[in-house]
């Protein structure tokens, strides 16, 4: 099995169609378990009280907001180097999901920040980086929408994604340099000594896994839809041509 087999849209559609409902079922199931576990069966934090529980939405969405962009970067590279058509469509499919995740992370962060920091918004490096990431997503989606020819659009957005990734990294470090933050440091690192306590950590990881599975299910579904849309456009074009000939 290699990803090149799935450059054939027919093969891709045939393979993912049975997977999609299972992925949705597993993802939603895991999310339900994770959220119920997190909301009702974990203790309140001794300083933050019950507000800590928004972590089960905030962290997974932030995690996916970044990784959706990373996935788009990889998909764009695969498209631009090897002309893997499904890969380009997967990058297109991921962008609206990524931008939604960025918005969820920003919104839950604001809701969490209000009681904890006393403010909905602060010009903190992490918050600002996410806002910039949001702008990058908007530009990427807008460019896809603006160009009628699908191959040109795929090429241009791929290059934008690659250039944008470099600048997103630069902006991240620029923002770190530019302001002191309110946001805590990374507390889920695999190599760190001190992390979030296990009682919070276990449901959190479950929620992150659930979000990831749901994300993959959405990407597969949206990619399949994109393939179908392209097929319809091609069929319509063919129909119009044959009409002209008659």
């Amino acid at each position, binding site marked *: 099995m290699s990803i090149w087999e799935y450059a054939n849209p027919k093969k891709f559609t045939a393979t993912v169609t049975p997977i999609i409902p299972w992925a949705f079922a597993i993802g939603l199931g895991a999310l339900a378990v994770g959220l119920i576990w997190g909301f009702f069966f974990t203790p309140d934090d001794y300083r933050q009280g019950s507000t800590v529980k928004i972590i089960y939405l905030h962290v997974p969405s932030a995690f996916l907001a970044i990784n959706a962009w990373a996935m788009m970067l990889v998909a764009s590279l695969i498209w631009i180097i090897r002309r893997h058509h499904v890969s380009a469509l997967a990058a297109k499919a991921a962008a609206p999901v990524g931008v939604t995740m960025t918005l969820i992370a920003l919104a839950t962060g604001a809701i969490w920040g209000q009681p904890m920091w006393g403010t909905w918004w602060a010009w903190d490096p992490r918050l600002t980086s996410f806002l910039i990431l949001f*702008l990058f997503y908007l530009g990427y989606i807008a460019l896809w929408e603006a160009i009628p020819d699908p191959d*040109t659009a795929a090429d*241009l957005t791929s*290059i934008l994604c690659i*250039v*944008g990734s470099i600048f997103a990294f630069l*902006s991240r470090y620029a923002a770190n340099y*530019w302001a002191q933050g309110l946001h805590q440091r990374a507390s889920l690192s695999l190599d760190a000594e001190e992390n979030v306590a296990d009682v919070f950590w276990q449901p959190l990881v479950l929620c992150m896994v659930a979000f990831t599975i749901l994300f993959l299910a959405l990407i597969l579904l949206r990619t399949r839809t994109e393939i179908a849309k392209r097929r319809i456009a091609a069929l319509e074009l063919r129909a119009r041509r044959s009409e002209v000939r008659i």
Partner: protein
Amino acid sequence: MKALFWRDIRLAVRAGGGFGLALAFFLIVVILVPFGVGPERAVLTRIAPGIVWVAALLACLLSLDRIFALDHEDGTLPLLATAPIPLEGVVLAKAAAHWVVTGVPLTLAAPVFGFLLNMEAGAYLWLVISLAIGTPALSMIGAFGAALTIGIKRGGLLLSLLVLPLYVPVLVFGADAVRRGAEGLSVATPLMILAAITMGVLAAMPFAAAAVLRINLR
């Protein structure tokens, strides 16, 4: 490349080219800010470095679509692409011409606008130096954005949406250099990072912009 560079400058300077428009826009933004925030001198002094940098960035943005759009419309661009110079060179020459007609006047005029905003005496020198280092990057990044949007009708708004997030690092370090200059701190770190960004952009961006042009001309 030299001929192309001078041609672009002549086109920009002569009637209808928009030379000076960027400068006028810069002036208007700087004049509007005191109307918005009030005429207190202390407040203006505090925000002057940031305002001048943001105004310079917007003024630069205003003329970006001229880099390629007109040549694309009248068919010069495909000829340039088949000319015996690399397309990367074309991009570089055009970005350099854009810098000469917008970046350089902005840099030279910036102290006057700093004066209007009651900027600290120590900041003027750093304002000019940081703009001189940073504006080439603005023109080059802008050329990439302009190359992305040549095929799109009324792509001006899209161009700003694509280019402005790319300007963030330049703005952060450029404005910070001036702010530190105003407070009498050492400006070496932001200026060095700004120079690094500019050189990196000048080295790599022509390839990205040329790749984009080739796709658009296909």
